[in-house]
């Protein structure tokens, strides 16, 4: 049984505490519909308890208690049927979502394992019989370990790795890894999406700036004719591009915030994202104006004379 590993790790020198945790995607019946959430199973009293509890408490009993995120709309003492049992809401967190945007709920490791078991025996079975791929339950199991003071987490990680042929992650990396793995696949897709969208928006901004420049090519030729230096012309174009990009940025942010609540998954829009986006926008705007600038610099002042 895989939980053995936990005890093995606990025996590694310097590890003061090791606990098993599970992560699985389950559906939870909210007042409106079945909501996909990530259920975190943890050993009560060990590492991994819910953060940011805004009302109620963390789990105290080994069975049928649940801590849910406020987004799901439950109140304390609400009853939630999961698997074959009814869980009672004992605590409510704020802002507990996985990186893929699903709200987190916390149950005891024992309950979690039972749910897992049920899923693979009941739900999945009949799903499979229907030829439908089981998509409701994805399970991540992990061992988290606390390191005694005086020991370097990195060394221990190295140690565990060599010795157990397991990968070990240091304390800082841990949370990151846990959530990252859950969304590894979808983040790859999001990454691809992001890249494509950035390329596409660059192309669009380029085209717009190019359009605007082409539309003003005669005037640019005149400006060159009467002696305006290139730098002034380039400045004009880049300015235009930046103004455009900035407007798009503001519009995009407003739009994103307006529709985010309508999204199927909870999407976290962090301030950092906005800042990052801002720099991307600036970059894209500048790159987008290159084509236009090229056209402008190539414009022949003699064009201003002819018909």
């Amino acid at each position, binding site marked *: 049984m895989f939980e053995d590993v936990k005890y093995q790790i606990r025996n590694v020198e310097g590890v003061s505490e090791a606990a098993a945790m599970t992560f699985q995607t389950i559906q939870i019946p909210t007042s409106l519909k079945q909501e996909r959430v990530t259920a975190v199973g943890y050993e009560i009293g060990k590492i991994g308890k819910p953060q940011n509890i805004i009302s109620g408490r963390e789990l105290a009993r080994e069975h049928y208690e649940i801590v849910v995120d406020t987004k799901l709309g439950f109140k304390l003492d609400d009853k939630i049927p999961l698997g074959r049992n009814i869980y009672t809401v004992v605590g409510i967190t704020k802002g507990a979502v996985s990186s893929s945007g699903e709200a987190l709920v916390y149950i005891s490791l024992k309950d979690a394992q039972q749910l897992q078991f049920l899923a693979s025996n009941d739900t999945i079975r009949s799903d499979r019989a229907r030829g439908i791929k089981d998509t409701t339950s994805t399970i991540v199991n992990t061992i988290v370990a606390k390191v005694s003071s005086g020991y370097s987490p990195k060394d221990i990680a190295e140690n565990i790795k060599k010795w157990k042929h397991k990968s070990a992650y240091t304390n800082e990396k841990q949370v990151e890894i846990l959530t990252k793995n859950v969304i590894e696949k979808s983040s790859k897709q999001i990454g691809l999406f992001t890249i494509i969208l950035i390329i596409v928006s660059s192309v669009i901004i380029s085209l717009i700036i190019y359009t605007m420049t082409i539309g003003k090519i005669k*005037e640019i030729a*005149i*400006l060159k*004719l*009467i*002696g305006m230096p290139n730098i*002034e012309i380039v400045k004009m174009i880049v300015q235009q591009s930046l103004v455009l990009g900035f407007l798009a940025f503001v519009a995009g942010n407003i739009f994103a915030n307006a529709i985010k609540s309508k999204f199927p998954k909870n999407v976290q829009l962090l301030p950092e994202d906005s800042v990052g986006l801002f720099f991307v926008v600036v970059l894209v705007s500048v790159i987008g104006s290159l084509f236009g600038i090229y056209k402008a610099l190539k414009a022949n002042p003699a064009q201003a*004379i002819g018909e």
Partner: protein
Amino acid sequence: MSSLAIKVENLKKEYITKDSTLQVIKGIDFELEKGEIAMLLGPSGSGKTTLLLMLGCILEPTSGRITLDDEIVYEDRWILKDTRKLRREKLGFIFQAHNLIPFLNVQDNVTLLPQLNGIAEVEYKKKAKEILTYLGIEDKTNYMIGSLSGGQSQRVAIARSLANDPRIILADEPTAALDKERAISVMELLRKLAKEQEVAMIVVTHDDRLLPYFDSVLKIDDGYLTKTKASETKLH
């Protein structure tokens, strides 16, 4: 520093198109003093505009030498690197197509260059007002270019070419769209400027009634140029 504003030596220009080579300017030499105002004559297609474009460093000659204001700007290739600075600071252009910026109003079109050259605002605004008043379009100062008549925009083009205190003015039929009285008053203004501020000017015109306002006549025909004194020239 000599008294010469323009010196052209053995200047040639041919246009090469896919199926033929057109020798427009076959080798011309002439000099223009500071303050001299010359009429450039020649049949349609003889190369008048071509010559002005080369003098304005807008079109590259095939060979020869051009000296502007004691500075060699062309000698079988461009000698002067920043021709645009030269244009901005020393040259004034008035072309057949008036080349105004349609999204700026009359005043901004006229003050664009002095502004770029770092002249103080009060100064260039005052000057623009003066010129526009002289040309009879001060009431159009805040008009957009699109709502001007042909003659009005031609006058704005004239005003613009004067606004940056050029040393040399190259004008291609500046009075074509003007009636006779206006044409004469424009020529009077140009002549006054030439004399008072020692500006050299070459003005293409088909209107021989304007001959009295010129010092000299440059006649271009079949690729060659002859220069005569205006007072000694009989047209036709």
